[in-house]
C-alpha cells in the first residue's frame, strides 16, 4: 500500500513535469493568462462605457418630471436600451458568443477580437444595471442641495452624486470583474487562444488532462483572491468619510 502511494507521488512529479516544464510549456500558460487578462480588462472597459451610457439614458428618462411632456428622443433611446439589457441578460453568454462568431462576425478571423466584443457587450448590460442602481441609491436631497447652491447638473453629478454612487457601485462592479475574468474561458469555445485553450491543448498532446486543468483552475483562483483583497482595501479607503 505504501508502495502505491510512493508510486503515485513519483508519477505525479513526472506528470507535472510533462504538463508544465517540458519544452518550456509554462510559457504557453503565461501567454494564455496574458490573453485572459487582456480579454477581461478590455471587455470590462467596453462594458463600463456601454453600461454608463445606458445607465445615464435610463436614469435621465426615469427622472423626467411627472406631469410634463416627455422627451421623445430620450424615450426612443430608452426603449433601445431596454431591449438591449433584456436580450443580453435573458440569453446565455455562450450562445451570444456563438452568434457573434458564426452569425454577425463570421468573416472575422481574429477570435480574440470577437471575444472582446462578445464579452464587452454582455458585460455592458450588467454594468448598466449596476450603475443605474448606484445612481438611484443616492438620496435625491443630495442633488437638490447641489442645485440649490447654484451648481449646474454636471458639477452636481461629478462632485456630489457620482462619488457617492461609486462607493455603492464598487462591490458589484468588483463582482462583475470577477465574473468576467472567469467567463473569458468561454472564448476557448470559439477558438480564442486564452488560458483554457492552452491547458486543453497541452492536456490533449500529453494525454493527461488533470495537471494542466487543475493548474489553471489554481491560477484563476489565485488571481480572484488577489483581486478580492485589493477591492476590500479600496472599499475601506472610500468608506473613510462614513467613520465616526
Amino acid at each position: 500500500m505504501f508502495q502505491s502511494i510512493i508510486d503515485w507521488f513519483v508519477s505525479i512529479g513526472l506528470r507535472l513535469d510533462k504538463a508544465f516544464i517540458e519544452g518550456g510549456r509554462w510559457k504557453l500558460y503565461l501567454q494564455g493568462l496574458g490573453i485572459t487578462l487582456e480579454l477581461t480588462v478590455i471587455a470590462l472597459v467596453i462594458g463600463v462605457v456601454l453600461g454608463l451610457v445606458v445607465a445615464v439614458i435610463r436614469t435621465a428618462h426615469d427622472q423626467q418630471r411627472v406631469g410634463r411632456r416627455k422627451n421623445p428622443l430620450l424615450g426612443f433611446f430608452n426603449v433601445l436600451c431596454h431591449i438591449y439589457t433584456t436580450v443580453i441578460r435573458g440569453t446565455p453568454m455562450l450562445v451570444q458568443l456563438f452568434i457573434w462568431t458564426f452569425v454577425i462576425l463570421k468573416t472575422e478571423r481574429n477570435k480574440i477580437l470577437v471575444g472582446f466584443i462578445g464579452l464587452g457587450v454582455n458585460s455592458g448590460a450588467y454594468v448598466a444595471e449596476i450603475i443605474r442602481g448606484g445612481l438611484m441609491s443616492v438620496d435625491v436631497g443630495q442633488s437638490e442641495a447641489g442645485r440649490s447652491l447654484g451648481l449646474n447638473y454636471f458639477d452636481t453629478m461629478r462632485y456630489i452624486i457620482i462619488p457617492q454612487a461609486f462607493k455603492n457601485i464598487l462591490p458589484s462592479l468588483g463582482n462583475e470583474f470577477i465574473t468576467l475574468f472567469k467567463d473569458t474561458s468561454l472564448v476557448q469555445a470559439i477558438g480564442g487562444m486564452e488560458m483554457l485553450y492552452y491547458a486543453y491543448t497541452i492536456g490533449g498532446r500529453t494525454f493527461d488532462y488533470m495537471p494542466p486543468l487543475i493548474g489553471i483552475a489554481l491560477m484563476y483562483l489565485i488571481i480572484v483572491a488577489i483581486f478580492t483583497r485589493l477591492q476590500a482595501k479600496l472599499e475601506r479607503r472610500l468608506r473613510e468619510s462614513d467613520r465616526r
Partner: protein
Amino acid sequence: MIDVKNLSKSFGDHLVLDNISEHISSGEKVVIIGPSGSGKSTFLRCLNLLETPTEGELSFEGTVITDPKVKIDRIRQQMGMVFQHFNLFPNMTIRRNITLAPVRTKLMSQAEADESAASLLRRVGLEDKADAYPAQLSGGQKQRVAIVRALAMKPKLMLFDEPTSALDPEMVGEVLDVMKELAHEGMTMVVVTHEMGFAREVGSRVLFMADGKIVEQGIPDTLFTNPQSPRLQDFLSKVL
C-alpha cells in the same frame, strides 16, 4: 424682491398649490405655517424652482425666473436654501461642503472660500469642525453647517424648509439661535416651520397656508392673538 403671480402646482391630478399670488420684499422675514400637506414646503421649493410650477409666473429682482431661457443656476446662486434633512455631502469634509459651490461657480478662489468658510464656521461656533466629515457631527451641528454652506454663496435671500423638524429637541435651540442672529443682521428670509415661538419672535409677517392656498396672513402678534378664519383658529388651538 420676489413676485409670485398666479402660481399653481399639481403632481399628476393632485393640486398642491392653488393660484397663489404673493410679494416678498427685501429684508422681510416671512414665516409660513400650516398643517402638513397644506403645500407650504412645495411653495418654498417653487421659489428657487426645485419644483417647477405648473402654472404662473415667478420673478426675482425683476427677472422672470419661470422663463425657460433664464439661467436658473445664476439665480439659485443668490438664494440660499436649508433643508429639513440637512443634505450635507457625506463624501466631503465640512470645509469642502462649504467651499465647493463658491469655488465651482467662480464666485471665489479656493483661498478666499477657505477664509470665508473659517470665519462663517467661527460665527456658528464650529471652527474646529472644518476637517471633520458630516457623519461625525450631531444633528444641530449639521444644520448649522448647512446654514453656513448656504451663506457661503453670499445669497440675497435664505429659504428654510422646516430646518428644525428633524432635530432632537435639545438641538432645536442652537439652530434657531443662528437663524435669529441672521434675521437681526437683516437677511431676507422665508421660513417654513412648526416653531410657533420662532414665528412670533422673528417673523415680520406670517403666512398661514391650508389646502394649497394662503388662507390668512399678517404680523405675528395679530395673527396669533386674533385669528380671523376658522381654519387658522382650529390650527392654532392644536399647536399652541
